[in-house]
């Protein structure tokens, strides 16, 4: 089986989210994956992430997008890393609009079922520049 490349797997994940294809999106994420999301102060697993994404559904958003940029791919011995910038942006229902620039790091593993996501850590850039110095 041609498992494809790490970049192809990442692009499929991005495209699935952009198209609202949640079956394909969550299909790329292993049940035991660790998700450290940009708007929660605690980590979760895939089930918690699915619940959180459900909250961010049509009741609360007229539309939103996750736009990754400046990606760095690394892989070794069936383990993949994707690190880059991303922007969550969109229009909440009954509110103007939102833009949340951040950095993210992902971990992927290559198995007989291809590349699957094991780790996704996202953090708003504001946290990396605010109050970083004591003087």
């Amino acid at each position: 089986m041609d498992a494809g490349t790490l970049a192809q797997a990442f692009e499929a994940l991005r495209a699935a989210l952009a198209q609202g294809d949640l079956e394909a999106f969550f299909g790329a994420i292993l049940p035991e994956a660790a998700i450290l999301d940009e708007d929660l102060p605690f980590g979760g697993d895939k089930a918690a992430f699915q619940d959180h994404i459900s909250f961010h559904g049509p009741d609360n958003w007229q539309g939103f997008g996750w736009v990754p940029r400046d990606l760095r791919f690394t892989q070794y011995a069936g383990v993949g890393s994707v690190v880059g910038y991303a922007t969550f942006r969109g229009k909440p229902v009954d509110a103007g609009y939102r833009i949340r620039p951040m950095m993210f790091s992902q971990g992927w593993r290559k198995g007989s079922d291809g590349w699957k996501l094991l780790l996704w850590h996202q953090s708003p850039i504001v946290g990396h520049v605010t109050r970083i110095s004591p003087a």
Partner: protein
Amino acid sequence: MDTQSLETAFRTAFAPLLAGEIGEKGATSAALLDFCHPKGTFVVDDLPYPLDKTGLADHRAFHDGGLWSKCTLAIVSLNIDVHKTTDGLSGVIHGTYNLRGKPTDAGFRQRPGHLSAMCVWDDTAKSWQALNIHFSPLFAQVLDASPS
């Protein structure tokens, strides 16, 4: 290789920070750099862009160079998972921490956050290596998290 070996590798990499030996005790981040894969990418809690290994070494040298009387990485929670891949083993580390200490000539600092690392077992070197490490301050996870 199991989760214990990965946790040992992680704690060895951060041993000087875990022991509060960065600062007047003169410890360095050499062990952390040994843990980092040469082609890895690293996100630190106090810069707004990812670093390669050379950039991480430069940033750690800045912090190791006498700016702290004492600096400690206090691990609050740590989760370790190991998976087989087609070609070896992957290791996932994630948890929460409090980076705390006394900068030289300033009161004290606490910066709690999330941490994660994606690791690979290097069967040639017989060691775990981090392809990425990400530290992020928690307050950004709750600051401005909602539009209303």
